[in-house]
């Protein structure tokens, strides 16, 4: 891997700027959230060149932003945020990625670590058998073509209507689990065919289910608002996205955007940044199709949450209300949203691309559910499977600096190849077992690629984000059991 040798300047302990004149064609400067040690890691690869490339997008405002978990992606860096003006800017499917609305859903329980430890193998095995995962996994819900269009239109609401969730689940989901501009006519038959068998499936790669125990609480009031009351409390984290449907929507529209770039005479340094004006036919079509894929993902995570609840009840022999498996929040980390933000004192309608970044709205914002209005929108930041995850909230500072965005995870440190060369999948499982973490997987190869040491320590990522004021951490949890797709 080639180290990045470009121009970057220190602003303060947590902020670095790639000047606008670093590359001819950049419309704004790059702003990277990192401390010195993290920046040294980031410079080992080409992610910062991608931050500079994103700055070419027509209509981009503020900065081309990089969260502290940034790493080398394709087109956009993973951990990149870019806001473009709706009236004369562009939308780029590469700024969302193939896994549209990949995201995380967190459930809390009334259980204590001691209740679960003796049954963790049984619980993880039950979850593994009850929730389809891995390549080729097919969901237990069969949907007709008409129902597929309903899912794409109504998102998680469709799942609630079918009896697999409740209205509280919707209240505490970003966008209530449905972007209203969704139009199934803009999703190809190929995408629908690819996604149809996959509603209610985890998938593979870095997708996972994790049974966790709260290890530290930093803000008791905010944690209590989320139903997180004490250390040792058991949580359940679900990480997946829109599966093959989203992948196909992205691929379909990248082809369309490739042609749009020529049609509108847009100059870009990387074809993967292909884009079209937000208000063009191509731009609107993509937004409506992307909304469908996002809705599919929210429906998918809610189906999985239903089977998580079912599995806990079965293994523990208790009712769901006794176990208290209530949803804390569900947040997307690969998405583009139309939002209003203040830029240079002016209120602007923007298209905010979050590619491996989480929305982080502050207390009092109209996009925050009523029960969190006083504390801010929950932000869920999974770490690697051997260490820890964080629950945080959005801040006013994030609103001012990052269009209400923050980090989304640990961020990869090693390539998949390097991770695989470091340890075999069986050894990774053994290593986790020695730490008291029981893991089940469909692919030992994937397990090796997802090993702890392949990721940055999420602790450093969150400390930088908190130091820069773009989140406030509320609690930290550690894994007890993991299912890797």
């Amino acid at each position, binding site marked *: *891997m080639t180290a990045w040798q470009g121009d970057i300047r220190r602003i303060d302990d947590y902020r670095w700027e790639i000047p606008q004149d670093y590359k001819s064609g950049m419309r704004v400067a790059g702003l990277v959230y990192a401390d010195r040690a993290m920046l040294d890691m980031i410079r080992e*690869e080409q*992610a910062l060149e991608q931050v500079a490339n994103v700055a070419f997008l027509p209509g981009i405002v503020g900065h081309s932003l990089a969260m502290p978990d940034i*790493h*080398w*992606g*394709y*087109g956009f860096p*993973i951990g990149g945020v870019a806001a473009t003006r709706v009236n004369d800017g562009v939308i780029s499917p*590469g700024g969302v*990625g*193939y*896994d549209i609305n990949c995201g995380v859903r967190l459930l809390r329980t009334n259980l204590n670590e001691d209740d679960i430890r003796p049954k963790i193998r049984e619980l993880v095995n039950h979850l593994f058998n009850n929730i389809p995962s*891995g*390549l*080729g*996994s097919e969901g237990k819900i069969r949907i007709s073509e008409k129902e597929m269009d309903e899912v794409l239109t109504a998102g998680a609401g469709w799942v609630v209507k079918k009896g697999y969730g409740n209205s509280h689940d919707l209240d505490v989901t970003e966008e209530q689990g449905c972007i209203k501009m969704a139009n199934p006519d803009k999703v190809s038959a*190929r995408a629908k*065919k*690819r996604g149809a068998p996959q509603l209610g499936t985890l*998938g*593979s*790669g870095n997708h996972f289910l994790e049974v966790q125990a709260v290890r530290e609480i930093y803000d008791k009031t905010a944690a209590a608002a989320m139903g997180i009351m004490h250390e040792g409390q058991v949580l359940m984290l679900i990480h997946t996205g829109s599966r*093959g449907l989203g*992948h*196909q929507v*992205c*691929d379909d529209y*990248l*082809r369309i955007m*490739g*042609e749009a770039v*020529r049609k509108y005479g847009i100059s870009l340094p*990387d*074809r*993967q940044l*292909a884009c079209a004006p937000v208000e063009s036919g191509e731009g609107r079509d993509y937004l409506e199709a992307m909304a469908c894929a996002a809705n599919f993902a929210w429906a998918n995570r809610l189906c999985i949450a239903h089977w998580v609840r079912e599995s806990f009840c079965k293994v523990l022999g208790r009712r769901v209300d006794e176990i208290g498996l209530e949803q804390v929040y569900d947040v997307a980390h690969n998405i583009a949203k139309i939002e209003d933000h203040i830029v240079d004192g002016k209120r602007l309608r923007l298209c905010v691309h979050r590619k491996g970044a989480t929305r982080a709205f502050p207390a009092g914002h109209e996009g925050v559910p009523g029960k969190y209005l006083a504390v801010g929108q929950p932000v869920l930041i999974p770490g690697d499977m051997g260490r820890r995850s964080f629950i945080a909230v959005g801040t006013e500072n994030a609103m001012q600096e990052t269009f209400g965005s923050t980090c989304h995870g640990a961020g*990869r*440190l*090693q*390539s*998949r*190849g*390097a991770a695989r060369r470091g340890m075999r999948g069986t050894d990774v499982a053994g290593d986790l077992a020695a730490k008291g973490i029981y893991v089940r997987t469909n*692919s030992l*190869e*994937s397990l090796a*690629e997802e090993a702890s040491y392949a990721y940055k320590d999420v602790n450093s990522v969150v400390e930088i984000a908190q130091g820069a004021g773009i989140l406030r951490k509320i609690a930290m949890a550690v894994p007890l059991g993991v299912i890797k797709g």
Partner: protein
Amino acid sequence: MIDHTADIGIIARGSDLPVLFSNAAAGMLSLLIEDHATQPGIAREIKLEAVDRETLLVQWLNELLYIIYTESLVLSKFDVLIDANHLVARCAGQYVDLKSPLFKREIKAATYHNLEIAERDGEYSARIIFDI
């Protein structure tokens, strides 16, 4: 194979464009499934058209992925013809259960990231990054 932090890439080479396209497909398959896992038995013809040859290459690879994911048909033998930006490929392969342990990982898509088909001293090459 290229070491990429989040994903995986390959460099494919060929004496002409059809060989490059066949080799790129073989390279992608080597990331997806064990080498010995597929035999040519089922025939399939693929026809594609694109605005340029780079787009055609990505479309070709993603078409093969689409057939794998929607039909469980792994095409592994290719006879590719390319005329301008049109492709006709006579392919052969076999059905493989997607749940089979022969599959190493899921590839979401071939991407356009920094994609360029280069031609030097009569050899074509392309660097392709896949989203994993």
